[in-house]
């Protein structure tokens, strides 16, 4: 292999970004049509939204695969200087920071309704008349099992599946770190093994989470439209689940790249990015377990 590049590599030009924009545009337009066509809030009589959405998804997968094929080729050809490696790392860190802020919006909403909005609706502070005039029967509690409007639900307990899921995800973070050590040590058999175990744990988490949702909907009456408790519960755990799916996808790619021997002790940014991301979803889950399930 050639020596590592010393100059900063600026790729010539690339068709992928603009195709990715078109694909993402198709995806979101399809998604909106699909949602409007399958819910009752607005009139949208068509039926092709779902198809358009799938075309967008397929387009995104195709374009991003081709895009990353280019970057992998460049990486394997040692076109990335050490400085560029730092750019990638910084980029990933700031991306994760933006994801933290995305979750911060939903956690902020959770804290606001728990500590302010719900007590106010029950008359706390200077809001006695709000309660007396709007919903005199309403009493504050969290989890909010009966909304001011009268919808009821049951709470999701923390000590069954959620605890098991917590253990699974934390364990997967540890196994991911073992894989990382193996990458740094250049031990390919070990890295493949630990990555494989991490993946199994990650997918197990997702399956159990799906099972928990089924339980919530069928047995507890805990649904998206069961009031603010259900709203915050599904929004936070749902977006977390989506991020676990993304993280698991990244790690799956890393699994196959690691089997091909792409990850070397001094060139494995992609693996580290996926691992950081995995730790990030893990930390978010710990907060979820504490504030959504437990307290």
């Amino acid at each position, binding site marked *: 292999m050639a020596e590592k590049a010393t*100059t*900063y590599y*600026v*790729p*010539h*030009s*690339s*068709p992928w*970004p*603009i195709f*990715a*924009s*078109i694909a*993402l*545009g198709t995806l*979101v*337009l399809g998604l*909106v049509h699909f*949602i*409007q066509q399958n*819910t009752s*809030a*607005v*009139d949208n009589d068509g039926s092709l939204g779902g198809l358009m959405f799938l075309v967008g998804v397929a387009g995104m997968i195709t374009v991003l695969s081709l*895009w990353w094929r280019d970057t992998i080729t460049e990486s394997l050809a040692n076109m990335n200087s050490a*400085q*560029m490696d*730092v*750019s*990638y790392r*910084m*980029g990933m860190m*700031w*991306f994760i*920071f*933006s*994801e933290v*802020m995305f979750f*911060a*919006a*939903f956690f*902020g*909403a959770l804290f*606001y*309704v728990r500590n302010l*909005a*719900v007590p106010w*609706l029950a008359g706390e502070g200077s809001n006695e008349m709000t309660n007396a005039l709007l919903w005199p029967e309403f009493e504050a509690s969290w989890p*909010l099992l009966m*909304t*001011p409007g009268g919808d009821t639900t049951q709470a999701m307990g923390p000590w069954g599946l959620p605890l098991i899921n917590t253990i699974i995800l934390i364990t997967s973070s540890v196994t991911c770190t073992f894989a990382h050590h193996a990458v740094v040590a250049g031990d390919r058999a070990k890295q493949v093994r630990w990555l494989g175990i991490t993946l199994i744990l990650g997918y197990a988490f997702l399956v159990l989470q799906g099972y928990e949702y089924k339980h919530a909907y069928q047995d507890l009456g805990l*649904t*998206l*439209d069961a*009031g*603010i*408790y*259900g*709203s915050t519960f599904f*929004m936070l755990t749902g977006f977390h689940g989506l991020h676990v799916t993304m993280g698991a996808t990244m790690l799956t790619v890393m699994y196959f790249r690691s089997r091909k021997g792409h990850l070397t002790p001094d060139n494995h940014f992609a693996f580290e990015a996926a691992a950081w991301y995995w730790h990030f979803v893990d930390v978010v889950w710990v907060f979820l377990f504490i504030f959504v399930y437990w307290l």
Partner: protein
Amino acid sequence: MGEHHGPDKGIKRWLYTTNHKDIGTLYLCFSLAMFFLGGILAMVIRAELMYPGLQVVDPDFFNQMTTCHGLVMVFGAIMPAFVGLANWMIPMMIGAPDMALPRMNNWSFWLLPVAFSILTSSIIMSTLGFGQAPNFGWTFYAPLSTTYAPASTDFFIVSVHLMGISSIMGAINVVVTIFNLRAPGMTLMKMPLFVWTWLITAFLLIAVMPVLAGAVTMMLTDRHFGTSFFDAAGGGDPVLFQHIFWFFGHPEVYIMILPSFGVVSAIIPTFSRKPLFGYASMVYATASIALLSFVVWAHHMFTTGLPLAGALFFMYMTMLISIPTGVKVFNWVATMWRGSMTFEVPMKFALAFVILFTIGGFSGLMLAMTPIDYQYHETYFVVAHFHYVLVSGAAFGIFAGVYYWLPKWTGVMYNEKLANAHFWCSTIFVNLLFFPMHFVGLAGMPRRIPDYSWQFADFNWWISIGGFGFGLSQLLLLAVVIQAGRGKGKKVSDEVWEGAEKWGLEWTVPSPAPYHTFSTPPVIK
């Protein structure tokens, strides 16, 4: 790979480019187009408000105009213009070969036309009589944007998502470029202030654009999936929307002004022929403004019935911002003090910026006081305030930057006659447009309403004249930019402005700047 590959031929150059200068040009052209689109919407508003009564458009359409004017100007005109300037100038100012992540740079740009085609198509469809464009104000408060909003709202939501993705990627690129690609010797405290202000702006963008994405996502699920985030009957709260929105929104207004601070801080030293006064204090002031911007959001919501302690906290925090902002204004003035000043067009715009932005800052201080805000809230006084900081502030900063760097980009001096005409027309009309709004606002004229009482009629006629005048003046800018872009004009030297060479690396490279500037980094002493 060729070390010094030139641009691709034809349209592919623009579609597939990874070059920071090409992408900067794309951003700036896109922003100019959106500036005119937003301007046309504003003209509709002013046409309706020229006389009392309803004569030009119906109230529903008027609401769509105010909403889309705000959205297009904020997300389509101001922000992309700043990213365009950043793309062009930051690598040249810090001695970098390009932006750190060139392909992602291209993606950040090309998401914008997609996002704005979605938003614009709802305006066009509404004009043609199919449905309604977003009509709930640019702040899209729930429940106007949830329970009572038109079908186009969902498309608006995804277009905001796309703009957000674009902004976050653009901001990450800026941060990484500045942290990782500075030439040897270019320490952080040697960076030009434009680079500093953009670094801080980019941090704000990465921190708050995801929060906006969260807000519109909750809107979407409230609209279609029965969640109750903004619905009190389900235990949520419509005011929660305002909290989340303004947690994004207040840093956002600094996102729209900090880069202009940077531009002005570059221009004033050049034309005063003196180094910037108080460089370090400028950096710290910018950082303070950015940090304070996270703890002032509820000053937009004094009339929602905040708890007293909350109102007091947000009032004092807001007033605190006037201190770092004052530091900046005094530093600009001190830079000019006893300088050998000349008044080229960029300097004229920079001076107008300092004066007019300060007027907007003062009216902001008035609005910051809770009891006074009860009187001013939702009146034209607020409209006057934020247009002073956004038009004669942010936009004038962009104009100043464009005139300052256009010779470097194109290699020719802009047409000075036209540019001067653009300056004078803009400055006179912008004041005719926005200054009387203070009076009608203090007298109680509500914003966002297509009709008003007779006593406001005279002022509103003048305001509309100012509006049309300001709008038409911008055609001069278009003419100047097209002329210079086609290379028509006096050839300029490398340093362009007398003595500019010592103020920044961008003045040491040829004019026009070559396609690739610093393949090997310069060493900064």
